């Protein structure tokens, strides 16, 4: 995974709460068997409206999404993260993320930073004052800036470390393979097995 440190790019204000993963990518686009090629599906329903924020010319090429609370609720589809990433987003800032979405993001190199609702409002105001302005998301310093407005954001230490190091979770876990094997040796006989089929 690519290492993440400082992300600078156009910031998009998505002034909606409860942006569920069905909005980020509707189910009909989940039929691909690859991890790429989802950019056209991102926000497919909302994008039919030419006035929808990411359609506007000043926000083309954006890399930072600043959204209302409860972003990424609903379905576990990691396609939501792939679609955001394919479209060009590198960071999402919101007052609250759904757990599964946040976990999926961390494993795919998409930074998710949490700020307060008031801070999101202030970031939106800073963008509204200067549409197309860059945001800077500094993972090392844990800050997000738009123009003169800078706030600290929350991200858990472990996810931050993995993002900054670009680490692959599976390789990390396989270092513990001996302990996994030992644990399996203690597994009770009543616990389920799918094979042989009964």
């Amino acid at each position, binding site marked *: 995974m690519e290492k993440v440190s400082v992300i600078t790019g156009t910031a998009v204000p998505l002034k909606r709460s*409860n942006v569920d993963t069905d909005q980020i990518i509707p189910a009909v686009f*989940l039929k691909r068997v690859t991890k790429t090629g989802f950019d056209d599906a991102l926000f497919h329903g909302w994008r039919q409206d030419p006035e929808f924020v990411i359609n506007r010319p000043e926000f083309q090429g954006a890399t930072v999404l600043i959204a209302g609370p409860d972003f990424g609720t609903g379905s576990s589809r990691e396609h939501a993260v792939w679609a955001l990433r394919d479209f060009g987003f590198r960071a999402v800032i919101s007052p609250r993320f759904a757990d599964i979405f946040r976990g999926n993001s961390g494993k*795919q190199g998409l930074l998710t930073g949490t700020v307060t609702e008031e801070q999101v409002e202030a970031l939106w105001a800073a963008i509204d004052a200067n549409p197309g302005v860059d945001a800077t998301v500094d993972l090392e310093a844990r800050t997000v800036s738009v123009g003169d407005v800078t706030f600290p954001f929350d991200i858990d230490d472990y996810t931050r470390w993995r993002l900054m190091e670009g680490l692959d979770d*599976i390789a990390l876990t396989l270092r513990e393979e001996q302990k996994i094997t030992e644990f399996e040796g203690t597994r009770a006989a009543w616990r389920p097995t799918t094979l042989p089929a009964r």
Partner: protein
Amino acid sequence: MSTETPSAERSAASAAAPRTLAEKVWADHVVVAGENGEPDLIYIDLHLVHEVTSPQAFDGLRQASRQLRRPDLTIATEDHNTPTLAIDRPIADPTSRIQIETLRKNAEEFGVRIHSLGDVEQGIVHVVGPQLGLTMPGITVVCGDSHTSTHGAFGAMAFGIGTSEVEHVMATQTLPLKPFKTMAITVEGELRPGVTAKDIILAVIAKIGTGGGQGYVLEYRGSAIRSLSMDGRMTICNMSIEAGARAGMVAPDQTTYDYLKGRAHAPEGQDWDDAVAYWETLKSDDDAVFDAEVFLDANELEPFVTWGTNPGQGVSLSEPVPDPAQIADPNARAAAERALEYMDLEAGTPMKDIPVDAVFMGSCTNSRIEDLRAFASIIQGQKKADGVRVMVVPGSARVRLEAEAEGIDKIVEAFGAEWRFAGCSMCLGMNPDQLAPGERCASTSNRNFEGRQGKGGRTHLVSPLVAAATAIRGTLSSPWDLAQDGGDAVSPVTPSTEEVAV
């Protein structure tokens, strides 16, 4: 105790401390305890796989030349994409067909047991696990599907994961996880006839909101939960994710054991006795401390229905569409305004005056045999309302056969509804079962998101009983309304008056 410290960490610090059900199951699966803020490495007992979230994970294994560590703890079925008509014919949509064929090829290559279309065990992954007896108390269950929380009804720790985590479980049979906080949801009292598990969970979500459970595992407890069947408990745990919680649990009891005993993969003989002895320990200790607690009075509950575009936007069926102007929180108010516009509803309209175009009876929330029985008990001998499309989709091929043995298919067809083959179907409309733009549907599924059941479609989440009554009357209705119409098909539901419908 601080609410900042996840409770599993607290209990690790003091082994003798009273523990919740969730903490006990967690502790029994820690392979490596995380230090300095690192996650615990948690062992996974059962990995359920379906066609949509697995192809990229299998591909990842191949690219890294990794093996699937435990095919014997893995099982696959086809559900999200599958047609519910003409299942003996090739799947018409080429991208759906490729995804299904990819799952079959991957299952063969990696030695995964698979139940394909046409197999008696094929069906929605969350119906298949319990029906095979693979889902049991005290185990960890994951699946690349957020409704994996369903399996928590057995006292399992079960949660949805993304595709990266699917690959991780395939390669290691573990997941690195931070401990969840714990929330007790206590539902005391007795449900009135016509009020069901679905109404409980819709009311819970309306109360705590779609983000209320974020970071928590929910434990449902209290007399109203204890008196529910396993099918009812599964309905409740299924929708934990709609409150933002990855997992929901119910402590196992005799109801759980009676459901499991004799199922294909349930333990037998000495293993059964050992299992029950362990399962008996899986109760939250009397003095265990939850990080948060929520109470709900079952006696007061009415049939519930959503009016908006997230599952927290719900009211009792006897109420009107809420007025966004009355909502204090600006974000919630804006969301309500947007929702009413999308749903084409006016504040103040009685919910019961809202006509529907379609009724969907199915999904991993409500497609088990009891759900179908409940639906059939209301529609028996009736005709559906003119112009309303009614689709009944059993959760699995086995449920379908069981229902047919009871004559439910005949009741459904005589009513004028469609009796389909098993799958996720119109819950998410990945297959041809979709709403047309602007169509309004009373649905026993779990998500009323914009476009969820088809682009431009409008969804009201309801119980099977409400779905049935709505299909008869053509407007959002409960069996209580049928009684007032003078119908005699409302058994076992007692008549109600406006006074009763508080």
